[in-house]
Every structure is written in C-alpha cells, then in structure tokens.
C-alpha cells in the first residue's frame, strides 16, 4: 500500500469513527431514562410551560429529525444550548476545556519527560539497585488512586503546611483585578501558578508510572537487539550508544503520549473535582447531576473525539518516525 | 519399490495466498495472489523417501502444511492411498492424521515447554483412543534410543539437549505407527555430530518400519543421505526431479546447478568455483508466466518468458527448462506426462501420452 493511500484511508477511517461516536452518543442519550424536563417537573414547573419548552427545543420531533438536526449542527460546530445555563454549549465549554488543557498539557508533558528519563536510567543497567528497586516507588505512585493522591496533597500541603490553596483556579481578588483584561491574562499571574501547583503535582503523580514503566521495558528490549552489540564493537562511545538506545526506546513512549494526553481529559475528572478546578471533567459531572443533556453529550463527544484523533495522530507520527512501518501501513 | 498405488500422490497441487483485505475489496482492487505452491506433482510410494529442496521462500513450508492437511489446496488434488483428500470426511481425515506424522526443524519450538515427555507422547494416543499408553511410550522411546525411557519420560523440554528433543519429536511422530513421515529439515538446527546420529536413526527407522518419508530441506548434503529422489523447488514450482545421486552429479536445471555448485565442500584440495548467480529470489507475487528462474539464470534466452514444459532429459532426470527440448520440431514424444513419470518409471524411452497436464 502506498504511503499516500494509507494516509487517505486512515483519514477517512477517522472521520467515520467520529461520526460513529456522535451517532452512538445520540442513541445513548435518547435512550436515557428521564431528561431535563423531568427535572423541571420535579422542581415544580407548570406542565404547560414544560410542554412549550419541549416544543421549543424540538424534543417532540420524530427521532430522525432530531438526529439530522443534531448531526448537521455538530458538523458546523453547533452543539446546542445548555439547558441549565441557557447559553450555547460551545461557549460554556470553551473556557473549561482550556482550564483542563492548561492543567493537563504541562502536567502530562512533564510526567513523560521525567518518566522517560527515569525509565531510561532504570533500564540501562540490568541488575542495578535502581533497576531492581527503583521501579517499586513508581508502581506505588501508579497504584495510588488519583483522588487519594490529591487529598493527601491537600491534607499535607494545604491544610497542614498551608503553602498552597485547597482548590480553585484563582482567588476572587485576581478575578476582579483582571475582569476587564483579555481572557488569557489571568493565566499569566502568580496567583494562577500558586493554585495550579497541587493539581499539577497530582497529574504528574498520576501519569508518571506510565512512561517510566514503558521506557524501562522498552530499554530492556532494545538492549537485547543485535545493533546494540554492534554499536559497542564498532567502538561508539557511551554517549552515542545511549542516543541510539534512547531513540529506539522512546518510540512506544512517544506513541503513548498523545493517547495519555487525551485520555487524561476524561480521566482526570477526579483531580478536577478534588481541587475544585473548573475544567471539562467537572463540567461533565455537574452536567450529569443536572441532567443537562446537551452539555454532557457534547463533553462526551469531545472526549471521545480527542481519543479518536489522538490515535490517528499516533499512526501518522509513527509513520514518520519509524521508517520500518512507513510503507506497510497497518 | 512396489508397483501399486502410491501412498501419497500430489497432482498439480496449488496453494495460492491472496492477502486481500476488506479495504481492497471495497476499493475493488485486484490483489495478485502469492503463488506459494504452483502445480506440484509428486508421488510417494511405500518405503520410499523423497526430498524436496529449495531456498527459503520457495514454498516448501507451504507444501508441507498442505500435506499436513492444515491448508486446503487452491487447485489440484492430493491422494492418500488413491483416495482424493478433497472428498475426505472427518473420520477419514482423522485416519489420515494418524497415518501421516510430522517432525519439525526447530527442537526448541517443536515441544510444548509446559509438557513433559510423557504428556507429549500421551496426547496423540489419547486423541486416537489407543490403549497401553505406558507400554507404547516406553517402546517408542527405546526405538529413538532414549535409553532407559524412565530417565527421560518425566523431563521437560528444557531439561533435554537439542538432539534429545529431536528424538522426542521423532518418538511423537512414531508413536501412532504411521505410514508416512513428513520431515521438515529435522537436523538443520543441530550440531553436526548430533546431525549424523539423527539422520542415521531416521534412515534405520524407515528401513525397519517400512515407512515412507517426505523430507523437506534447504540443505542438499543432508538430504542426500536420506532420500532416493530429489525434487528441486524454486519459487513454488518443482524445476527438476532426479534420483539423488544423479542430481548431485549432473544437475540439469540451471537452478539446480547453481544450488549444487554453491554447496561448500569439506576438502581443501578441491577447488570449487564460487557461484555466478547474482541477487536473491523474487517475492512470489507477480511472477508473470515464464520460467521463474529467468531473471537470475546464466543461460537465459528469449523463450524463457514462456512457461517451460516438464521434459525428460536423459531418461533419469526431468527438468522444466527450455534448454532441454527442441522447440522447432515440437516433438510430442519429448513431452512427458508428469503423472506417468512421477509414478517412478524413470526408465528412458517414455512414450508420448499427450500433453502435459499443466500446459
């Protein structure tokens, strides 16, 4: 299969997967027992008003009409309006997505850099202390549920030592100070960094073990390969040899990086909740509790879409960095 | 050699692989098949041993797996005691599997690491519902010279040396008292000192038990110790069939010549010329018609783009090469019916019996 054809096919496949995800979500959400109007009724709304609401929102239209409207709107980036907040979902989600991103991207990146380094170190010398026992604390970290880590961080560094706030994005003062400034201005404050410190640490702790373990295993594997011996006998100095090993061993880590990144968007719900961080995960939990279908549905779609796109990116990246699979494709 | 029915008979046997994915089907693309085994005709008689040699990728493994009944042939037919296997019922297959056994090349992979020798030997007995397990196992271990059997029977493969593992493999093949042994380079991964003893064991067992053997290898030197007749295979086709000594002394097909010329000779006084063949064998996809060796052949002619017939060269050797028949006169007498020839009548003066089946 030619390279171009492979990429075209892979792209088509990705688009198909996105459509599939959107459709599955539609089906899932239409088959949910109870919806927002139930909650309105429960809250004591006038049945006539509720009926008018249903009519307004097209909830009484036949399913295929709803489906058509849903897909076409989604395709042009219209995810509907939040039932709870009465604002377009996109607008509601936008800042929260950014908040998640600003926590996750640096956190995961740092975890991957640190973890790869640690894994390289642990993998290089078989039988050394760091190889034998160094991996144990890493597995410990990986086995700690993220909310446990997060709570421990709060107990120790916020409550006992009082170095950091227990949660939130910025203080009310800062919010007021930058109320008129562009939206991104508040992220460039010390206050923000002060708030981000503990959640960031929690993210790093949660994701450190992945790259460490993979890198370590991968370094072992690479070291068993013939070219490692060949590099030694051709007299390459240690630095050059390490470069070859690192380059190889990092292939699987690089593959996993975008995947972790996107999985974290859904996976770090717990950390966001513990630190009261207004991210997308928290929005999901709030939306679920409020039966705010458009929000939940869109957040869910985003999370799924990110995963699909990350897998796509991985295939493309792999095709570029590993000449062996460049041609064969899958 | 008996003149009755061959035990195993391959007639124009074909096995193609089409690596067609769902995507290809959707896009309506034609995927040319890999012609791993292409029109192979071989007969194996009782107490006869036939060798198939060729380089890696020539289709021997596919041929072997087809013989084991693991692959369904794409075309042609395989007869067992005269019965076409394509019409076999389940019970007949089970009978076939009992009577046709295999010995593999790699002693490290041919035994289940989680099985003791006893487990390994017991399995075929259980599958075929035979009794007297202990007695049979002991007898067969003695036959393959793992003496005393008690010492070996409870060992795991990792507690056996390469040669011992190979003996256990042979024991597993023999325990059902089969008629035919398929051997897939059974000595190629062994040290030379062990090699000789396994070869000797195999050839003695054949003699004693009247077994037939189908021996597949890339190594002519070892094949020549076991086989009466050799088929040289190149990219899925048999290009030459000759009695063992004949092919060693006077190979006919240019590929056989190249193969034999390239074998190193353990004699410093002997001055052998290095091979003149360049390059490596092609992938067996898109080979076109014509002779498959033509791109590497030192004797290449224009006519080689046409598929060569299988012709009797000198009454002993049969080769599929344009060098060996006169195309002008198109003498039908030189055109051999493969089936007749394969049936062992390697005497000269074969009469014309019409066109060869594959032309």
């Amino acid at each position, binding site marked *: 299969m030619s390279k171009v054809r492979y990429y075209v096919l892979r792209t088509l496949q990705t688009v198909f997967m996105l459509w599939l995800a959107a459709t599955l979500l539609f089906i899932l959400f239409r088959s949910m027992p109870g919806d927002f109007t139930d909650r309105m009724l429960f809250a004591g709304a006038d049945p006539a008003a509720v009926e008018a609401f249903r009519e307004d929102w097209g909830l009484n239209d036949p399913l295929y009409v709803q489906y058509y409207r849903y897909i076409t709107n989604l395709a042009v980036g219209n995810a509907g309006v939040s039932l709870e907040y009465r604002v377009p979902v996109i607008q509601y989600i936008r800042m929260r997505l950014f908040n998640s991103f600003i926590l996750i991207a640096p956190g995961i990146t740092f975890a991957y850099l640190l973890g790869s380094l640690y894994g390289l170190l642990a993998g290089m010398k078989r039988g050394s202390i760091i190889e034998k026992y160094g991996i144990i604390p890493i597995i410990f970290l990986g086995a700690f549920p993220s909310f446990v880590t997060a709570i421990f961080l709060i107990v120790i560094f916020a409550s006992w030592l009082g170095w950091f706030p227990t949660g939130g994005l910025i203080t009310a003062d800062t919010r007021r100070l930058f109320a008129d400034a562009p939206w991104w201005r508040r992220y460039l404050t010390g206050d923000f960094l002060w708030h981000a410190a503990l959640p960031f640490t929690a993210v790093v702790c949660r994701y450190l073990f992945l790259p460490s373990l993979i890198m370590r295993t991968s370094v072992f594997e690479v070291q068993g390969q*013939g*070219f490692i*011996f*060949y*590099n*030694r*006998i*051709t*007299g*390459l*100095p240690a630095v*050059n040899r390490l470069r070859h090993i690192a*380059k190889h061993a990092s*292939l699987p880590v690089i593959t996993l990086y975008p995947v972790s990144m996107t999985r974290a968007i859904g996976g770090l719900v717990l950390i966001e909740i513990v630190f009261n961080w207004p991210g997308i995960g928290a929005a999901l939990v709030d939306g679920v509790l409020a039966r705010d279908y458009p929000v939940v549905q869109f957040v869910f779609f985003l999370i799924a879409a990110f995963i699909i796109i990350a897998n796509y990116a991985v295939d493309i990246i792999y095709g570029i*960095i*590993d*000449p*062996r699979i460049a041609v064969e494709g899958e | 050699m008996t003149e009755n029915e061959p035990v195993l008979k391959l007639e124009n046997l074909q096995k193609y692989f089409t690596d067609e994915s769902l995507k290809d089907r959707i896009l309506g693309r034609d995927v040319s098949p890999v012609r791993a085994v292409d029109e192979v005709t071989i007969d194996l008689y009782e107490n006869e041993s036939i060798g198939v040699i060729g*380089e*890696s990728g020539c289709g021997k493994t596919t041929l072997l797996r087809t013989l084991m009944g693991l692959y369904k042939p794409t075309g042609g037919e395989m007869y067992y005691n005269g019965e076409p296997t394509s019409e076999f019922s389940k019970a007949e297959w089970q009978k076939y599997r009992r009577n046709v056994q295999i010995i593999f090349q790699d002693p490290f992979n041919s035994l289940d690491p989680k099985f003791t020798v006893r487990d390994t030997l017991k399995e075929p007995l259980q599958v075929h519902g035979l009794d007297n397990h202990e007695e049979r196992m002991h007898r067969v271990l003695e036959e393959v010279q793992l003496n005393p059997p008690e010492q070996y029977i409870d060992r795991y493969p990792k507690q056996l*040396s390469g*040669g011992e593992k190979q003996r256990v493999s042979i024991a597993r093949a023999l325990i059902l008292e089969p008629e035919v042994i398929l051997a897939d380079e059974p000595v190629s991964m062994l*040290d*030379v*000192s*062990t*090699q*000789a*003893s396994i*070869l*000797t064991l195999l050839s003695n067992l054949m003699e004693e038990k009247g077994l037939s053997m189908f021996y597949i290898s*890339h*190594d*002519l*030197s070892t094949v*020549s*110790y076991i086989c*009466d007749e050799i088929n040289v295979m190149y990219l899925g086709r048999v290009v030459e069939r000759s*009695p063992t*000594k004949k092919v*060693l*002394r006077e190979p006919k097909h240019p590929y056989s010549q190249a*193969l*034999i*010329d*390239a*074998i*190193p*000779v*353990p*004699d*410093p*006084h*002997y001055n*052998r010329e*290095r*091979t003149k*063949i*360049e390059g*490596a064998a092609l992938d067996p996809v898109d080979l076109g018609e014509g002779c498959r060796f033509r791109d590497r052949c030192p004797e290449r002619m224009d006519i080689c783009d046409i598929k060569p017939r299988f012709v009797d060269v000198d009454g002993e050797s049969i080769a599929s090469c344009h060098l060996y028949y006169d195309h002008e006169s198109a003498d039908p007498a030189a055109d051999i019916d493969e089936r007749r020839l394969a049936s062992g009548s390697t005497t000269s003066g074969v009469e014309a019996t019409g066109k060869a089946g594959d032309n």
Partner: protein
Amino acid sequence: MSEQPILELDDVTIQYRTAGGMLTAVSDASFTIGKGEYFGLVGESGCGKSTIAKTLIGALDDNGQISSGEIRYKGEPIQDYTEKQFNQELRWKEISMIPQGSMNNLDPIEKISNQAIEIAQVHTDMTRAEALERFEELFEVVGIQKSRIHDYPHQFSGGMEQRAIIALALFLNPSLIIADEPTTALDVIMQDQVFKYLDEIREEGGASMVLITHDISLVFESCDDIAIMHSGQIAETGDIETIYDDSRHPYAFMLKGAFPDHRYPDRELEIIDGYPPENMGEVNYCTFVDRCPYAVDECREMAPELEQWEGTESDHLVACFRSEDAYEEHQRSMPESDSESTEVHGDD
C-alpha cells in the same frame, strides 16, 4: 613468516560467573594468526568460539572475564585493556567484526549511511563527504549499488545486509576482521555470494581474518589455518591441508567425518555420541573424554596440552594423550577410510 604475527593467544582461559559458580568457557586456548592470514576456528555450539570472538574485540558479557593467559595484538598485550582503550586504540581501526545474526546488526531506524558516518567520525578525521565516498566504494566492492547506502536496513535482503556489514567491517581498513558465523542465516547461494567477496578481500591482501563457524567446509574452502575446538579446549590446530589429510585428535577426525560431503552421498557419517560437558571451575581433564571412544584414564586426570605433532614441519599442534594410537585405531575401524573410493557406488 618471520613477521610479527597479528594476533597471538597464549593459554587464554575465559570464565563466566554464573549462579552455579565459575563456568569455564575457554580453557588454555592458544593460537597465532599471521599477517594477511585467514584463520578458521571451528566447533559445535557452546564450544567457546563465540566467546573468543567477543573477547578479541573486548565485548565479553558483563559476567565474563579473562582469568589467565595473554592475548597479544601486534605484540601488544591487550587482555587487560579497558573499554576506553578498546574504543580508542583497537575497535574498527585495527580490529573489526562481522557478528552473528546478520539481520539485526544495524539500527533499523537509522539510514545505513548515517551509521557509517557515525563510525567514521568517532574514529577518524574523515569528513562526511569522504566517509560517504569511502562507503560507496566499499558497497561496490561487496556488489551492492552505491546509491543504496542511503537505504534503511529493512530495505535490504538478508544477503545484502550481510554484505553491507562486510563493507562496514572493511570501512576503516582494519588489520584483523573477526567473522562470527557470517552466513548462518543465509541460504547456500547467498552464502556463496558472501564468501565470494570475502575471497576477494583476501586476494587483495592486508586484513587477516578469524572465521568462526560450525561448518568445517567453509574453513577448508576459505582459510589458511584452522583450529578445532571442543568444549573450551582447542583440540588441534594447523594448516588446512595438514588437518584435512592428517588430523590426529579424535574429535578433529571424527568431526571431519561427521560432515556430509555431497560428492560422496554414500559415505557413512561419523557419529559422535554424547554432548559436550558443562565445565565448572578449573578444567583439568580433556573435555572430550566422555565422548571419546579412545579415552583412557589419563585423559580424565589432566588436560592435554597442545603439542607439535612430530613428523610435520608446519605448525601442526595436537592436544591429545593418545594422538598416535587413536588415529591408528580409527583407521582400522574404517576400512574404506579413503573416501575417494566410495564415490558414487550403486545405491544397493
């Protein structure tokens, strides 16, 4: 041959630390390789030949050590060289190697040309362009189109990759090339192609070679001298004609007899019963004793030393207490010892 030899091994013993104690892989091995000479080291798997290969280039496994003896390269003892000394003084400029397992010696995600450039830049002052030019030349020598130096290893067939490895071994004009089973993974025609190029290198002179293989025929065809090893000990060494015509160590002549020769398909193959022992600790016995039909008590009590075989002027050394009688007995037991006479009998 008054010239300084390229390589001398003097009673070299190499051991590995294992869970069960010290495993002796090579015991008191000695041989000498002259300038431009091709030397074949033959033995079955586990006999220590690959250990010698790794030792010569300083790449013994971590648990291995040279316990005694001296290895001299151009007269200079190198057995105590550090990794750094090997890198700076010997590897690739002086001694290069064609390792076992052709298919994965090259880094699969690096262009072959880049790997060559890296080697050149580590050891020499060559510029990129000079290195490429030299490498292209060598590709032509081993019969690969020079444009292909920029390929990735997986784009090569097994035979081609092995020839690229040979090109790399010649890259910096070493004085000694160690070839460890250079063709085991290859088909016979490919093998012959590879040896064609090794022959050419030999004709051009210059480099010496240690050819390590289990296949005695390759050594008989391509080498000047041969050493036959059994389980860590060198049984017999000499020039190939002498060893072929007049080998005296039971293992040597039995091994020779075990090799099939396609010219004489009817010759009975020699069977060497049993398996080589695992040698733990000091080896003060002949390691072939348990497999040797001619062994006597003496063979178990001490290790025979390599001694000059009388009656030959060349360096024909045998390590056997019974070299005189064993050969006679063997000859007697094989009435048709003259293999020529068995050529193409009928198949009755």
